[in-house]
Each structure stands twice: as C-alpha cells, then as structure tokens.
C-alpha cells in the first residue's frame, strides 16, 4: 500500500470522476482504471478487475469499487477519501438542482439533452464492459463463462447474485483452470 501520501491524489481523481459520471458509476470505470493503473501505477489491471468483482459481490451502489480502490491504495483512510470524493461533487450538484428540476420538467431542452446523452452513455458503458472483460478473461474458459453469463443475464429472470455465485463456484471447484 502506498499510504497517506496518496490521499490528495485519490481525492482529486475521484472528485473528477464524480462530475464525469454521466449515466452512472459504470461509465467511468475505464478512466478509473487508466488513472490507478497507468497514470498512478498503484495496481495492475487484473487487480483492478478483482476489486471491481468484489464490489459486485457486495450489496449497495456500484460505486463501491471506489471504496476498495481507495482501501487498496491507502488503507481505511483511502477507502473513505475515495468514496466521499466520488460522491460529494455529484451529490452537491443534485442537492443544489433538485428544486430547479421541477421548474423545468416540461422544458424541451431537458428532453433534448437526455436524448443526446443516451448514445454517449451507451458507448461509455460498452467501453467499461470491454475493458473489464479484457482483464477478467484470463483464458478461454473465463471468456466462455463471461459470454454464457451475459446470455443468462439478458435472457433469463435469474437473480444476478445467483449467477455471480455460480461463476465463483465454478472457479472454486477448479473448472476454470
């Protein structure tokens, strides 16, 4: 672990990500990975993917990957700083604009901006998915598992946690090599 010296950098990175996260937490995963793997070499891409997977196994918002990244870099203080930095700027924005939103509920620009952002969000989340899959596909078996699980998520009503648990179980019994 890098320790407390990394706290200001962590705060800056995650505060920026907060304001860039149009379309939710998943859209900033590639940038988060770029920052903590390349710009600041705090961990490898596969470590980042493991932390993301852990965050999916816990309940709650999918922003929790920030908690683990902060914790990995600078312990408990890092976990708090990263999580709060990722939440504070967007939260302040929400707090400040919630009452304005009602005033503009029928404004045409609101629909236009929403319609305009949709393709960008779609591209960003697809990028997140591919960047993550690159680091979690450690061989053909894990690649097949990702494809099969994707089909299960899309085509069945299985609870996501059931599929996640099954994926972990396949690994534990040694099927994934």
């Amino acid at each position, binding site marked *: 672990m890098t320790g407390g010296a990394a706290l200001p950098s962590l705060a800056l990175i995650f505060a920026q990500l907060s304001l860039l996260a149009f379309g939710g937490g998943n859209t*900033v995963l590639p940038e988060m990975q770029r920052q903590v793997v390349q710009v600041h070499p705090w961990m490898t891409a596969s470590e980042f993917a493991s932390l993301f*997977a852990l965050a999916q196994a816990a309940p709650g918002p999918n922003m929790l990957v920030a908690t683990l990244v902060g914790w990995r870099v600078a312990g408990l203080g890092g976990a708090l700083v990263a999580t709060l930095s990722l*939440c504070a700027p967007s939260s302040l924005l929400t707090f400040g*604009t919630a009452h304005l939103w009602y005033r503009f509920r029928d404004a045409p620009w609101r629909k236009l901006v929403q319609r305009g952002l949709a393709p960008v969000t779609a591209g960003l989340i697809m990028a997140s*998915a591919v*960047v993550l899959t690159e680091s979690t596909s450690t061989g053909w078996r894990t*690649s097949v598992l990702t494809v099969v699980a994707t089909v299960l998520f899309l085509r069945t009503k299985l609870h996501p946690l059931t599929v*996640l648990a099954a994926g972990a179980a396949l690994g*534990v019994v040694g099927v994934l090599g």
Partner: protein
Amino acid sequence: MSESRATPSLAALFMGFFTIGVCGFGGVLPWARRMIVEQRRWMTAGEFTDLLGLCQFLPGGNIINLSIAVGARFGGAAGSVATFTGLMAAPMAIVLALGVFYNRYSDLPMVRHGFAGLAATASALVLATALKIASPLRGRPIGIVIAVATFIAIAVLRWPLAPVLLAAAALSILSAWRFAA
C-alpha cells in the same frame, strides 16, 4: 398535487435507505422504488419517476443522487446526510470485509480461482447492462455512430474521459437538436 402521506423523520430516512443499501444486491433501484413508493409511501409513483429522471440526468451514481434528493426534500441538508450515510454504511463495511478476506486468502488457489470466476461473471453483468442500454439506439443511425466513436475513443484508443465526454456530448446533443424537428 402531492399525495405523499407523511414527512419522514431523520431516523426514518436513515433506516429507509439503510434497508435499501443492505437489500440492494444486483441493482439497488428496484428496492428503492419498493421502499419509497410502495412500503413507506413517501412519494407517489409519478413523483418518484420524475425525481429519478433528475438523478439519471446528473453525473454520479443514480441511487446516490436519489438518496441526496429524497433526503433534501424531506429534511434539507440534514436529511441528505441521513439518507446518504444510511445508504452507504452497511455496503461499505461489507465490501471492506470482502476486501480483507480476499487479501488474506488470495494465495490459496481455490480462493483465487473462485474470484476469477466471480470477476468473469461481474464483467458479464456490465456487458449485459451495456447491451440493454444500447438496444434503444436501433433506428438512430447517428446515435449509433456517436456510441461507436465514444466506445473506440475510450476502450481502444484509451483517451482520457473528460475531453471525449465533452466532445461526444456536444456533438450528440447538437445532432439531437438538429434532427428533432
């Protein structure tokens, strides 16, 4: 116009969102709706949908923004602090416990392989979300071009997010406006 039946206390706001945080495995939003609209009846379905629209429109985690907006509505700044801490407390503790467990036992092949399987499945969860979000773009050729260009800039070229987002959003909103009429 409002059919909301009660103004919840700070403790009720905290507990309500605490429940959402604990229950929200694989998607928190359905739980939030259930608690806020159906169980505690803090808002009508219409009010909830409108507020959710704002939370999806602004940057940041949708459910986190929702906790802030709901807290602000019923209890001002203190209300937002109550809902936010309620939402985050348990999931943060749980995810850190998982992290400690992973750190301690990741030398064991069984644990390492288990987490490899979990990670591959977690990627699938994002992949499925991406496909669901992309599917309404069918029939919007310009939208598809912008989505693909954004994807290439981030996933293939690995360009920084801020300039890509600014350029793509500006182009996309402009084209939505240009072809709206």
